[in-house]
């Protein structure tokens, strides 16, 4: 959680910053708990399905589609976290060579394209969800409605778009932060220190 350490310093400076920090912690913990539960659900479902199939001759019915739904929910719940942490993979080979002004422009371009792409995905997911809802689309075995996952995805993608812009704003606070390029942060692997 290296990214948050900088904010700890800012909390002392203004209440606005502390509110922002609080909002980010809240988002991080709430979505983090959702993701953890979904991962636990995916793992638990598989284990029970396999154990049930071999030892009790009773596989979990609808395991296939429950996996699909939980996976979808996991991806969409984690998308804001990834965006907020600035972990989308980027190529920074030229970025390292250009002056600060160009770096800023590149950051702005990247954030704008990310936000617009995410908002368009949100809009299309909402459209897709509305269609699923009006068709009354449900899964085969358990007859679970498909539309809610589309709505959830639309909301998460829209929020991610906002966070992409917020990430830009956070980075513009200080020029030296532009140089905090951290390859490990982009790859999503556990960080080295710890």
């Amino acid at each position, binding site marked *: 959680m290296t990214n948050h350490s900088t904010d700890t310093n800012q909390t002392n400076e203004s209440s606005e910053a502390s509110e922002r920090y609080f909002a980010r912690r809240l988002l991080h913990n709430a979505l983090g708990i959702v*993701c953890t539960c979904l991962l636990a659900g995916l*793992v638990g479902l598989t284990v029970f399905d396999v154990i049930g199939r071999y030892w009790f001759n009773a596989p979990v019915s609808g395991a296939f589609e429950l996996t699909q739904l939980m996976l979808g929910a*996991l991806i969409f719940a984690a998308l804001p976290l*990834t965006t907020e942490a600035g972990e989308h993979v980027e190529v920074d080979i030229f970025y390292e060579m250009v002056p600060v002004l160009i770096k800023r422009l590149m950051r702005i*371009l990247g954030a704008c*394209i990310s936000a617009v792409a995410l908002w368009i995905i949100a809009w299309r997911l909402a459209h897709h969800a509305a269609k699923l809802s009006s068709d009354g689309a449900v899964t085969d075995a358990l007859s679970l409605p498909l539309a809610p996952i589309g709505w959830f995805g639309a909301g998460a993608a829209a929020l991610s778009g906002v966070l992409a812009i917020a990430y830009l704003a956070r980075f513009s606070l200080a020029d030296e932060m532009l140089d905090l390029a951290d390859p*490990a942060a982009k790859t999503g692997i*556990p960080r080295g220190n710890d």
Partner: protein
Amino acid sequence: MAESFIGFAVLLALLFLRVPIAFAMATVGAVGFALMRDWNATWSMVGNVAFDTGLSYSLSVVPLFILMGNFLTISGVSHGLYAAANRLLGGARGGLAMASIVACGGFSAVCGSSLATAATMSKVAMPSMRRYGYADSLATGSIAAGGTLGILIPPSVVMIIYGLITESDISKLFIAGIIPGLLGVVFYILAIVVVTRIKPSLAPIADKLEPFAAKDRIGVLAVVGLFLLIMVGIYGGFFTPTEAAGIGAAASLVISIFMGGFQARKLFDACIESARATAMIFAIVIGAEIFSNFVNFAGLPDGLASMIIDLELNAYVVVIGIMVIYLVLGCVLESLSMILLTVPVFYPLVTQLDFGTEILSDSENILIWFAVVVVVVTEISLISPPVGLNVFVLRNVLPDVPLTTIFRGVLPFWMADLVRLTLLIAVPGFSLWLVSLM
């Protein structure tokens, strides 16, 4: 077809301007698709791709294998692997570096990511090599190179994605990676033998080795057991790769709690890390699918295939040409995006080539062999300057070592990789023998 090349050019320009790869591909793909067809079709394509990819059952292996690797990272089994390998090889000249390679290979067998393998092993192997006075170049080079085995030795996230693109059987892809992965270990060790022979001062002989404690034994047993559980489970027909991943994640949680105690905070962080990495990968997959819908609509794969077939080039010349493209792209692109961008274009072409050997006569075999070759060339890109990501992982763990030192240390392994790549292209049996036994 010309439209595709314009698309690729615009995409590369956006990437160099540091637009996130996922969104650059989505944007160029959607705009290109719309210009060639119309906006209505584009909008519904975007919605369908995002929804269907998010709910893709075959991709549910990805978060589960990532979670397994992250649980094992905090469990400390990596220390056991290194201690065991040290016991075996540590006495030889360069033995600690060889042990790093072997331990990396071992960790790869339960971890699907090269970056995670390099990051995990560097924390274990680096302090030890420093204590015995190894040169930083050799020490960091061996870990960066050994880490690349993560995507070749099963399980492998990259192989899963390749399987998805080409509709190949993931369990066949996994088993195909085993022998080339072991070859990688052997070639890397040979590279260490050669460099320490040329310059013995790189690696002083370690006279008193570190102890191999009881906890280390348990760690080794846990890794071996987990690998066997997954492999026997998949190849014995007991469960699907997805189920293997779920069971592997559950088992690694047990191992982690058994070895390190119930560290709630660390386990929670491991879950969040896994979720974030998953969303990062899915964003790239969604972007790449939108982009390849455009490229396919523009007729690039078919056009390219028929053009190459018309030229009547030797099949191996074509494959070598493709490898050169990968080596060049690998210098600037990250591995997953490189595979997602290029494999959809190349695989229809490769299956139409006539290799003139029995073993590469059907397209399924060609695709499995091509997967191994592509993954190995991607491994090379992970340690190629200027953006080899494994090198940056090492750099991140050891901020005091200059990048040039790591790249210098990686060079012998890079050359060993080129030899291995050539061998794997020339002898498809290395990749296909185990598959034929299935």
